[in-house]
């Protein structure tokens, strides 16, 4: 295996007295889609949020252990979480565009991070991001219309465009399709497969079939522990751990 993009060692997360993540060790590869699956409350989203320090915003949350991206400790005091989040983009469960135009939604990140020197460059970033998010053709004639006027699936793709506009290296997706219909879901899944060419993608999903369809690697979390991690093909045809087997096949564990 080549050098992992994201490497987590002995990660523990406590919310006040609750031990939410218990000693998770995992290596996530670049240019691959890794799916986190597991029942509600198993810690998969919490762990995902550790990767771009979103848990920093929660006072009672305490993260220990070591998470590195390209070998760099992201919890190092020198690391600016805002810069980190430009590098590690995130897409949430419900599409949450800013109450601004489509253009401004995408341009916001590059602007505040100073990624463009002039309007022409910014236009280019917006177009490129919308194209990558497979939204350009639908949005190009209405770039200055409000982002909230788009359909749910389009809004989610807009959020993906916004996340990739800052040229991140890692894209975290927390149930990106759970609020979408099957067609919009298929479009986003198709998009995730394209995004893999450029980024390391980590997706949390409750849909087993989605994990099986889009990911190359799957991690199964249960009660805060990483139970099994491996090739998606293997996890869905012949998992090692009986808990994984029970969960993916819909059995009483």
């Amino acid at each position, binding site marked *: 295996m080549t050098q992992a993009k994201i490497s987590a060692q002995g990660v523990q997360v406590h919310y006040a007295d609750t031990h939410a993540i218990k000693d998770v060790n995992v290596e996530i590869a670049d240019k691959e889609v890794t799916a986190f699956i597991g029942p509600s409350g198993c810690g998969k989203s919490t762990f995902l949020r550790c990767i771009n320090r979103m848990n920093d915003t929660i006072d009672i949350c305490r993260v220990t252990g070591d998470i590195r991206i390209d070998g760099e400790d992201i919890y190092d005091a020198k690391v600016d979480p805002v810069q980190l989040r430009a590098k590690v983009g995130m897409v949430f469960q419900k599409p949450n565009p800013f109450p601004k135009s489509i253009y401004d939604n995408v341009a916001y990140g590059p602007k505040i991070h100073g990624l463009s020197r002039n309007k022409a460059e910014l236009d280019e970033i917006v177009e490129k991001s919308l194209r990558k998010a497979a939204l350009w053709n639908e949005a190009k004639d209405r770039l200055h219309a409000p982002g909230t006027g788009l359909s749910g699936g389009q809004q989610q793709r807009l959020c993906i465009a916004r996340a990739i506009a800052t040229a991140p290296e890692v894209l975290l997706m927390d149930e990106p399709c759970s609020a979408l219909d099957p067609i919009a879901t298929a479009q986003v899944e198709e998009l995730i497969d394209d995004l893999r060419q450029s980024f390391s993608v980590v997706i949390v999903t409750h849909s*087993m079939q989605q994990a099986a369809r889009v990911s190359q690697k799957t991690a199964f979390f249960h009660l805060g522990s990483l139970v099994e991690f491996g090739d998606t093909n293997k996890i869905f045809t*012949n*998992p090692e751990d009986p808990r994984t*087997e029970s969960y993916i096949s819909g059995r009483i564990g």
Partner: protein
Amino acid sequence: MNEHISSAYDRDLEALQTLVMKMGGMVEDAILSSAKSLETRDIVLAEKVRAADKKIDALEEQINEDAARIIALRAPVSKDLRAILTVLRVAANLERIGDYAKNMAKRTVTLTDMAPIDGSDSALRRMSREVQEMLKDLLDAYLRRDAVLAEDVRQRDHDVDQMYNALFRELLTFMMEDPRNITTCMHLHFVAKNVERMGDLVTNMAEQVIYLVTGEMPEDDRPKGDETAFVGDVD
């Protein structure tokens, strides 16, 4: 194995397994009855085997339809997926064995008018009995998810091959002795070859059961027994 959260899913899988077992029982019976009809030149029994094959075929169709429905509705994974794949393959192999038994019954009707060849009928019956025993154990292995028993069945195909080799040579001798035996011997040889093929199909199913239980197909390391391909080879 724990139950599914959806109990209807469990019921569907169980119903499918029951159909496979029913089909297996009918095929076992077809093997024994066709061999018996041949040995006793019992045309009535032979006709029964031919008629029963239609029911076997219909069961396979039903199994295929039910399996397709479960795949579409439940999107099975892991052991459930292997269980469905196994059902489909086992049903296909059983159907084929049924066809061979039917063919044996057809030839029985023709052979009734011909003089018997010493020892061949009982040899065929022994061979058929062996294959039927293998099938019975295979169905047990499937039901109990017993990979060890399935492996045992898989190894036993060698014995059937040996019996076929011996019979092949015997029939050859009869044909050389008297050309008037050729028609009968050719029919009997086809019957023998069919039974030998049944053994191979049971072996396929045994491999499928091992896959069902372990998640991996067994290595191709069992002894191959049909040596008749080399008979007459000058080397």
